[in-house]
């Protein structure tokens, strides 16, 4: 039973690293903000699997909601595309 949860954790960890790689590669700052929201979401699932429900609640509400809104406001007030 718990071994199944660990396989799920392995898949989620790989997906989190894929999202972080998308953040590194892209040139559009809005896409970087969206992919960092994905990383925070998957991180909340990992906290849940590690039996820390209060940390998972905090990470879900702050990381997936508040941080993304702050970054979107900053992208609105500055430029969207990263120029070379």
């Amino acid at each position, binding site marked *: 039973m718990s071994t199944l949860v660990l396989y799920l*954790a392995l898949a989620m960890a790989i997906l*989190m690293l894929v999202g972080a790689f998308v*953040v590194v590669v892209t040139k559009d700052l809005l896409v970087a903000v969206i992919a960092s929201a994905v990383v925070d979401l998957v991180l909340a699932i990992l906290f849940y699997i590690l039996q*820390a429900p209060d940390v998972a609640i905090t990470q879900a509400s702050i990381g997936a909601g508040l*941080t993304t809104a702050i970054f979107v406001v900053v992208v609105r007030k500055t430029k969207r595309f990263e120029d070379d």
Partner: protein
Amino acid sequence: MSEALRTFFSPQILGPEIFYGSSVGLFLIGLYMILVKKNLVKIVIGLSFIESGVNLFLISLGYVWGKTAPILNKPELMKEPVKYAVDPVPQALVLTAIVIGVAVTAMALSIVIVLHDKYGTLDISKIKELKW
């Protein structure tokens, strides 16, 4: 071959290394973004990645295989909490660290907005004056 695979995927070996490896990977990606990228918003995103990696590492240090959360609402948990619950101290530590991390990120982003108003660019190699 299958014996080696079964040893590799057994829960005693598979358990903590997933979380250690992913937290170290997240930390290294954030460090790469801070050192190499020239855009200021991406540097701040890398800073928040480093915070997330350290938080995941601390939580996975407190995890014990096969135990449940330290919330005592079951009778067997009330009787012997040490036998059935994981370590609650890193969870309380990380709960504070996440909130402080959001405050640090908001502070850095306000500095980014002020720099963009002053210089008109987000490229860090074009911001050269010492005083503003």
